[in-house]
């Protein structure tokens, strides 16, 4: 049985893939799917409940919540992909070099990673945003950078295990150069756990970025971003629950889908990681 068939067989992963496909369609086709301009305000149409005129209601500025949620999918998916790309692009090479060469370089890289890991949860991203100043671009950098130690450690551990394999020793005995061995013989071992971790990391990155935007440190108005929309709906919880409910649902479903797909990928690609 091929990997894909095994993956689809798992109902959870399939559900995750379906949600992701829907979100991806929303993100790509936002201009056609959205009924209205997501940032155009209309004071007279403020706080309309969900109905025929506004499918998911309107916010305090008369903007269409549904259209903003659709455009928000674009922002969230993009933020997740870019953040995780930054983390992998920096973390994987660091882990490769650290694990393969060992010695002082390894010690130095790992001590730096230890220091970064001393800032728990979202605190590191907060510190980075405070240095770079608030904004969605800087949030992606901050969330990406704060995930680097995780990837560096994962790749290092995988490389350490792979380095001991007989075929690596053989390649070295045959006079293979370090660079060639790293890319041809060691890198393939790293790919599977990296894909699994990155998929699971996407959900976390989207959650962190939305949280930072919720705090006012990320996306700036009037951009339709789910975390920001939630904080804008804060004062209208009583009279207009829909302003914050639909973006919240968007975040929950996106992160849930990423985790389901990530769990499924793990079972297929890397059963050893299963807990």
């Amino acid at each position, binding site marked *: 049985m091929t990997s894909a068939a095994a993956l689809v067989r798992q109902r959870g992963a399939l559900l995750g893939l379906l949600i992701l496909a829907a979100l991806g369609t929303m993100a790509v086709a936002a201009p056609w799917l959205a009924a209205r301009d997501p940032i155009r305000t209309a004071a007279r149409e403020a706080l309309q409940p969900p109905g025929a005129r506004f499918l998911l209601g309107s916010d305090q500025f008369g903007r269409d919540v549904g259209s903003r949620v659709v455009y928000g999918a674009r922002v969230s998916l993009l933020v997740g992909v870019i953040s995780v790309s930054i983390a992998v692009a920096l973390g994987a090479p660091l882990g490769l070099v650290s694990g393969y060469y060992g010695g002082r370089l390894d010690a130095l890289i790992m001590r730096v990673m230890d220091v970064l890991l001393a800032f728990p949860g979202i605190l590191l991203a907060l510190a980075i945003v405070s240095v770079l100043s608030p904004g969605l671009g800087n949030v992606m950098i901050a969330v990406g950078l704060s995930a680097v130690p995780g990837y560096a450690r994962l790749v290092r551990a995988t490389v350490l295990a792979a380095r001991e394999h007989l075929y690596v020793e053989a390649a070295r005995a045959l006079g293979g150069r370090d660079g060639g061995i790293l890319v041809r013989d060691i890198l393939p071992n790293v790919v599977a756990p990296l894909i699994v971790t990155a998929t699971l990391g996407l959900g976390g990155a989207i959650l962190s970025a939305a949280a930072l935007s919720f705090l006012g440190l990320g996306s700036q108005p009037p951009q339709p971003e789910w975390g920001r929309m939630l904080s804008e709906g804060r004062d209208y919880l009583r009279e207009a629950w829909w302003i914050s409910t639909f973006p919240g649902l968007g975040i929950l479903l996106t992160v*849930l889908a990423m985790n389901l797909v990530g769990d499924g990928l793990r079972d297929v690609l890397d059963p050893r990681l299963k807990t």
Partner: protein
Amino acid sequence: MLTYVGRRLLAVVPVLFGVTLAVFSMLFLVPGDPVKIMLAEFVTTPDQVARMRAQLHLDEPVLQQYGRFVGNALRGDLGMSIRSRRPVATEIGENLGSTGRLALASMVVAIALGVPLGLIAALGRNSWLDVAAMGVALLGVAMPSFWLGFLLIFVFSLHLGWLPATGGGDLPHLVMPAVALGTIAAAIIARLTRSSMLEVLGQDYVRTARAKGLGGFAVVVRHALRNALIPVVTVFGLQFGNLLAGAVIVETVFSRPGLGRLIVGAILSKDFPLVQGTVLFVATAYVLINVVVDMAYAYVDPRIRIG
């Protein structure tokens, strides 16, 4: 055990040194002149800018500045807030209790929800109970704490009127923030408890206990759960750190005073000394808490301190 404690404490020193270096460097990594950024909202004369620079000792050699930073931090002096003109340490002291109570209450929620959920799932392995419990855990991990906070406010404050929506203070104020913050940790603990429990239930000593004729409850609680919780304890330190950091979000949701709101306010108002002081404090607390958890772990499980 003493050697283990010594070794573990020694390993912390370079990490804490690195943390001070990283926090100290923040001011130098800011693109542009940090003093001008901090004073951007005020009309300033060059003289005032120079005075501020001197007040922050930015006119000294970098190494001397760093030495002063570490020396002061060790004495509990984290500098002055630019906005409030009060010592950063005082501001932290005033907000520490509220965040500490929130983090502890969240931990209680996480354990009280997570352990039974994982236990139920493990005992009813592959039954509908297992599927339901793990489904709840899956939702818990993906749930944004700020949205969960809104939902709780909507139901329990606005509709039922049972609990106050905002503010810090006594127990009623603590319930919803603790649930909003503790849910992710509860979900993680539930998944871990389940897998750990499944492993332990397959061990020989559990079979022996059953063979001796012990009842199901005694086997599960006295023999299996006690051992299954050992790996769960290791994540407490990690999760406690996540709770401390997560307080940033939940405190904002519930307009609750605390370190989290202090940091966010400081970042938004470019109060760099306050940001640095608070970040340094939380990171140091997190590192030290993890040392304590590691020691507790070594105490419970002798294999750790020998290995």
